[in-house]
């Protein structure tokens, strides 16, 4: 295949051919091109619009997960990807006849200002801007505020997949009112409804939580987790069965690489169209085929309004967190190799978690407390797990002794090592260990940057306690059964 003497590279000094303005649009062959998509396809304005809209509809239509009349919650961050998604949905709903989108949308906006150290006045201003931006859209809007998630009054387990929700007093009252309204009106011109502003105490608690986190990476991960919980909670309480997130192709590629770098395996990451980890609420991503460049151009050319909100990593230098580093890496690579993002993205679609040995097919394993993925820390392979935990607990005096005893106990009962160690008195005195053991590897690594677990929202700590109590209760149950079986067996033997 190699031919001696043949030089495949363009001679030095000759730049690779670039699409020039003198070209025509590749689609209609008539219009003046305005934007370059992918590697060298120049589109004119109208063809670009058609291409963009068609992609959005195609992603929705191909996957057929959204049913007519279904309630779908649109997670809107104010940024352009989600604004674009909102805009597409709006346009799709208003179209006539058979091509019309047929679901019932609602919009949720999470105000993260407190986590980023924004003052209440700034946050109020941002929210007002967001509301104004949406005022013409005539969609039911729920403004959710993360601090309200910090208060936990009632908690009911929803769904069989270990999903849980946190309920808040004042928030609940709002929701009852909202629920009635939404049932009476199918598709509304309704003014946006806003939940009450969070109390100073809640805001303070949230700020404390975020300032106690040591690294920016952990902060971003924690913020993402809390935001997901909040959106899911809102979806559940308002009766939405689907949530649409506006992640673009570029953002998904970056997220995938970041997740891998953070120790989150494919089970904790769903790159497909739908993410069914949370049981009754399915997260879908209709913008997944659009690159950020396309989104930016579309928003600019067709005046899609968006609101900015400062993020936790605003103005942070490039190496401040793994997220930023990965973003810079991928974007820089993309500049040289225009197919980077799409390659990463397509590869991510092919990732499938290999079935684990010893895991009975069909039995759902325990789920991570925070990210709801199946726990990937193998209890049978407890050598690494114990090593990691023991070394992290060395400064404390009691636990290492009890930890050393646990391995011998677990030898007697295979597969119950971690559960049995719950019986050690040291565990009950160490709430941190109790929470940690219910997390997947990625979340555990994240928790390392939290010196104390106390500032975590109460609903998380309460759920952790409930689960470990439940696990202990199960263990006791098993022992009782065994005794009874022995008694029955004895007369049988002879």
């Amino acid at each position: 295949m190699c031919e001696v003497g043949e030089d495949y590279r363009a001679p030095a000094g000759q730049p690779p051919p670039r699409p020039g303005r003198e070209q025509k649009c590749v689609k209609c062959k008539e219009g003046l091109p305005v934007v370059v998509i992918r590697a060298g396809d120049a589109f004119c304005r109208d063809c670009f619009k058609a291409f963009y809209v068609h992609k959005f509809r195609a992603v929705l239509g191909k996957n057929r997960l959204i049913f007519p009349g279904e309630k779908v919650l649109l997670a809107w961050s104010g940024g352009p990807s989600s604004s674009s998604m909102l805009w597409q949905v709006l346009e799709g709903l208003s179209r006539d006849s058979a091509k019309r989108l047929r679901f019932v949308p609602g919009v949720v906006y999470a105000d993260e200002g407190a986590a980023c150290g924004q003052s209440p006045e700034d946050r109020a201003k941002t929210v007002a801007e967001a509301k104004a931006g949406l005022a013409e859209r005539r969609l039911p809007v729920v403004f959710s505020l993360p601090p309200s998630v910090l208060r936990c009054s009632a908690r009911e387990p929803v769904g069989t997949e270990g999903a849980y929700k946190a309920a808040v007093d004042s928030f609940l009252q709002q929701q009852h009112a909202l629920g009635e309204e939404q049932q009476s009106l199918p598709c509304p011109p309704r003014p946006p409804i806003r939940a009450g502003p969070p109390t100073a105490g809640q805001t303070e608690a949230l700020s404390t939580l975020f300032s106690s986190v040591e690294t920016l990476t952990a902060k971003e991960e924690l913020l993402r987790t809390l935001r997901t919980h909040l959106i899911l909670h809102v979806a559940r309480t308002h009766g939405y069965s689907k949530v649409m997130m506006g992640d673009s192709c570029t953002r998904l590629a970056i997220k995938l690489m970041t997740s891998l770098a953070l120790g989150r395996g494919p089970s904790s990451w769903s790159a497909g169209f739908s993410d069914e980890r949370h049981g009754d609420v399915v997260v879908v991503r209709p913008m997944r085929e659009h690159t950020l460049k396309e989104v930016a151009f579309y928003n600019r050319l067709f005046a899609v309004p968006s609101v900015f909100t400062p993020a936790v990593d605003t103005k942070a230098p490039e190496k401040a967190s793994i997220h930023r580093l990965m973003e810079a890496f991928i974007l820089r690579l993309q500049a040289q190799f225009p197919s980077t993002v799409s390659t990463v993205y397509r590869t991510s679609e092919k990732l499938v978690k290999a079935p684990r040995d010893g895991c009975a097919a069909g039995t759902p394993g325990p789920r991570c407390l925070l990210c709801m993925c199946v726990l990937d820390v193998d209890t049978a392979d407890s050598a690494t797990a114990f090593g990691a935990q023991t070394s992290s607990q060395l400064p404390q005096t009691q636990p290492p002794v009890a930890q050393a005893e646990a391995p011998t106990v677990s030898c007697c009962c295979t597969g119950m090592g971690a559960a049995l160690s719950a019986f050690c008195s040291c565990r009950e005195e160490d709430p941190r260990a109790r929470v940690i053991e219910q997390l997947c590897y990625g979340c555990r690594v994240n928790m390392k940057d939290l010196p104390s677990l106390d500032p975590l929202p109460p609903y998380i700590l309460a759920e952790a306690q409930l689960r470990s109590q439940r696990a202990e209760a199960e263990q006791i149950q098993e022992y009782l059964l065994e005794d009874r079986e022995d008694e029955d067996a004895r007369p049988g033997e002879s």
Partner: protein
Amino acid sequence: MAAPLSVEVEFGAVVNPGKRAVRSLLFDGVKKHQVTLPGQEEPWDIRNLLVWIKKNLLKERPELFIQGDSVRPGILVLINDADWELLGELDYQLQDQDSILFISTLHGG
């Protein structure tokens, strides 16, 4: 010898949350700048414009906007609402009354 040019430089149309804040922080809160470029020996192109921006408009943290010769990867440049890739990127020669828009697709800055 290039005559003085008047161009409009705009930053923003944020692509991800946080970017506009940086824009305003980096560029002193002003989004649109009507800029008069002085006459000089070489014709004005985007390359020179970037150098000019770095010297005159960027208030702080130039590395968040400019990298080496060009803009940081992840920042889109639109010249008169058209992709700069179609116009020659850095080599595009500026004309009077052109409008240059920088959009960042980066997270927070």
